[in-house]
């Protein structure tokens, strides 16, 4: 498959990506722009197996809230395509933003999303997630898992995985139909409206809102 680049991504120079990845502590594997090989169902599943093992480790570590948030931010950085999640959450406003604005917004969004979803995953303490299957959907893969929480009926968690960033990364979590990207699109849109469409103000406020 020919690597497809979105218009925004092709504007981002390799050097800027380097700086961004280094700042985020990401591995250099992140830098391969659009890998030539295609992701398979097994690889998508293997990625989520590793992710779930890390999440299970954190929710059963007995660590403090702040320690857990730090762990979740590290996990998000390593396993999620935060750039595409941030960009699609921002929606059409991302098109008018400068590369520098997008870089700052993405960094702020990373903290926001790790804290927000880290807090939710903290409620999984003492529980576990098990991967049960994977299947191709459109141009990506959906990895299906079941969450077992204490005192609750088991429920379904789906991870959507793609390699179109150049790495195998998840870009969406769907819990019993409730979709992270859609929720964040609504939330970030409302936050931006509340600031009169001022992206810089949103970026400054975002880390404190997670």
């Amino acid at each position, binding site marked *: 498959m020919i690597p497809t680049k979105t218009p925004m991504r092709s504007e981002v120079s390799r050097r800027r990506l380097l700086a961004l990845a280094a700042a985020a502590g990401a591995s250099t594997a992140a830098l391969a722009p659009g890998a030539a090989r295609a992701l398979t169902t097994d690889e998508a599943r293997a990625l989520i197996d590793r992710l779930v093992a890390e999440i299970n480790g954190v929710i059963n570590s007995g660590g403090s809230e702040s320690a857990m948030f730090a762990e979740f931010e590290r996990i998000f950085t390593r396993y999620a395509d935060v750039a595409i999640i941030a960009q*699609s959450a921002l929606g059409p406003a991302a098109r008018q933003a400068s590369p520098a604005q997008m870089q700052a917004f993405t960094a702020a969004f990373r903290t926001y999303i790790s804290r927000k979803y880290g807090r939710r995953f903290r409620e999984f303490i003492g529980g576990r997630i098990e991967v049960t299957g994977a299947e191709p959907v459109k141009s990506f893969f959906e990895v299906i898992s079941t969450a077992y929480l204490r005192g609750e009926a088991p429920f379904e968690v789906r991870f959507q995985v793609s390699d179109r960033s150049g790495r195998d990364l998840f870009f969406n979590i769907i819990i019993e139909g409730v979709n992270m990207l*859609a929720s964040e699109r609504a939330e970030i849109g409302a936050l931006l409206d509340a600031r009169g469409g001022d992206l810089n103000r949103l970026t400054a406020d975002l880390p404190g809102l997670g």
Partner: protein
Amino acid sequence: MLAAAAIGLSACAGGDAAVSRDAVNDPFEAQNRRVHAFNRGIDRALVKPSSQVYGRAVPGFLRIGITNVGNNLGLPAAVANNVLQGRVEPAATNTLRFLVNTTFGLGGVLDPATDMGLTERETDFGETLHVWGAAEGPYVELPLIGPSTVRDTAGMVMGVFLDPLGAALDSPESEYVLGVRVLSTIGERYRYSDTIDSLLYQSADSYAQARLLYLQNRRFELGTEAEEEAYDPYEDPYAQ
């Protein structure tokens, strides 16, 4: 519903051609937002504070027992719906579950049925209307009850008349049932306090978040999420 509470794309419901990914079918939005503000006020002033008192005063095992009784009392209606939907296996599971928990579970306080593999097959009259071919209809937020759709609201009204439990019980038993349901709801408000608080009080637009959460989770329950509606941010990076 529990998992919907655990974290807070919408797919097109069968027959609702007007609904697209981001454009929610919500012609009564202005009215719905007034109801949402009212519901939030009720939660802040009444439901949340009483749930805090209830949660601290009543020990966990008792709260779970009351929730179990509430769930058990919902099973006759679930069986009626399973039958109306022509779904034999869930009807049998729910019937057995009701019998086991009502007898060995001491009137539904305990839940031995789950340990026997008889987990509840949740359903309601709204789902029955869906199975019969009724369209989802516009989104509505109901006073004191919260997010719903026209179809699910019609289902709730049907439930008032068609719940076998309602037909079998007279006063004062029917009041006890209502009491158990109210306590059960307050117990859930306590149990999922952090999640509900973050949805109602920490979202930039709690109305839009509640609407999205309800519609997505409901379509998941009914199996009406369509794969072709799955959002691919790599194809549409600006989510237009």
